[in-house]
């Protein structure tokens, strides 16, 4: 990837941060932010050994998917990476789907999506600001695992991603990265995060089953309009572990099975 492309991607990432009104260091909730900027966000626990995510255009709508069986920091990165595919690759060359088994830099698209995600999650100037204001400009050869945990918490990223990004920004040398990786090995990122009252949830998977609220609105509305039978409603709700009884606002009349509709409409 040449410098011009890098700069172009950084600019797009900045635009997305602005769209999502991220003013702090990291995204408070990247899933909500992506929804607010018009993406349909789907999260599903499909297993630790499965693919990480995909980006898709369906009937003109843009969908990003992340596998919620992975630890939260990894899932957050997945969404950032898929947003990168959405912004940089989908529909440009007639592509409507990119599925990611892993985020290794196999091809140009992956390199670019990773670069986008890194720029989105940890922009250069925000990292500089954090080091200066929060780490009191402490020299990076004095950094320890707790400092990385603080960076993790501020930017909502994984320990490893923080190291990779800090190295690519020229903040850490390879030997420092190795030292800090060993710190994590001894203490584990969870303990480091707990020690600083950081967000230890980043190290756990959420197993979330989420589809956009409008998906359920379509289904519930179709049922309320008596366009679909209860079993179709149930089938759709079961994708997100809901029962018909869990849906508030269905009146008694609306819950009547379809066979009796004719009596009600006055045949």
């Amino acid at each position, binding site marked *: 990837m040449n410098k011009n492309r890098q700069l172009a991607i950084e600019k797009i990432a900045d635009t997305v941060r602005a769209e999502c009104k991220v003013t702090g260091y990291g995204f408070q909730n990247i899933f909500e932010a992506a929804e607010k900027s018009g993406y349909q966000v789907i999260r599903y626990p499909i297993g630790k050994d499965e693919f990480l995510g995909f980006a898709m255009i369906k009937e003109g709508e843009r969908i990003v998917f992340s596998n919620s069986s992975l630890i939260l920091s990894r899932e957050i990165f997945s969404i950032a990476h898929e947003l990168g595919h959405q912004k940089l690759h989908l529909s440009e060359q007639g592509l409507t789907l990119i599925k990611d088994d892993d985020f290794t830099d196999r091809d140009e698209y992956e390199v670019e999506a990773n670069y986008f995600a890194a720029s989105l999650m940890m922009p250069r100037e925000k990292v500089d600001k954090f080091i200066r204001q929060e780490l009191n400009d402490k020299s990076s050869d004095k950094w320890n695992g707790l400092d990385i945990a603080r960076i993790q918490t501020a930017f909502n990223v994984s320990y490893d991603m923080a190291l990779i990004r800090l190295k690519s920004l020229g903040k850490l040398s390879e030997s420092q990265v190795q030292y800090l990786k060993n710190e994590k090995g001894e203490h584990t990122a969870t303990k480091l995060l707990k020690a600083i009252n950081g967000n230890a949830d980043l190290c756990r998977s959420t197993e979330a089953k989420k589809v956009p609220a409008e998906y359920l609105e*379509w289904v519930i509305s179709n049922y309320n309009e008596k366009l*679909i039978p209860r079993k179709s409603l149930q*089938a759709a709700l*079961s994708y997100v572990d809901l029962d018909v009884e869990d849906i508030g606002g269905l009146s008694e009349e609306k819950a009547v099975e*379809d066979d009796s509709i004719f009596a009600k409409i006055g045949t």
Partner: protein
Amino acid sequence: MNSVLGARIRSLRESKGLTQEQVAERMNCTRQKYARIEKGLVDISYASIITIAQILEVSPDQITSAVNNEAQKEPMFRDNGASEKGDKFQFLDEMIDTFYAHRKLYKSVRQVDGDE
């Protein structure tokens, strides 16, 4: 979606041995207008679906079952333990298709409501 619903209505009508004229007459509309419904050339309102269902003596969901069938998918995490990579994507793809089938039905009803 309208063409799917139209085709469904046509086959239900034919299975009842009714002509387009007969149905149109009972709907108080011209045969030409009714024919356009079967061809999917006009948006079918929910009210029309109900009326046609009454005339054809079927339940409305027999007309809209093109969508309903979509929704009857196997749940994830089957217990056979034999799922391979790819299955999960297929599952998600089907889930998305299901919701989009509901979306089409939702939109097809709303559009007409908005026009009236």
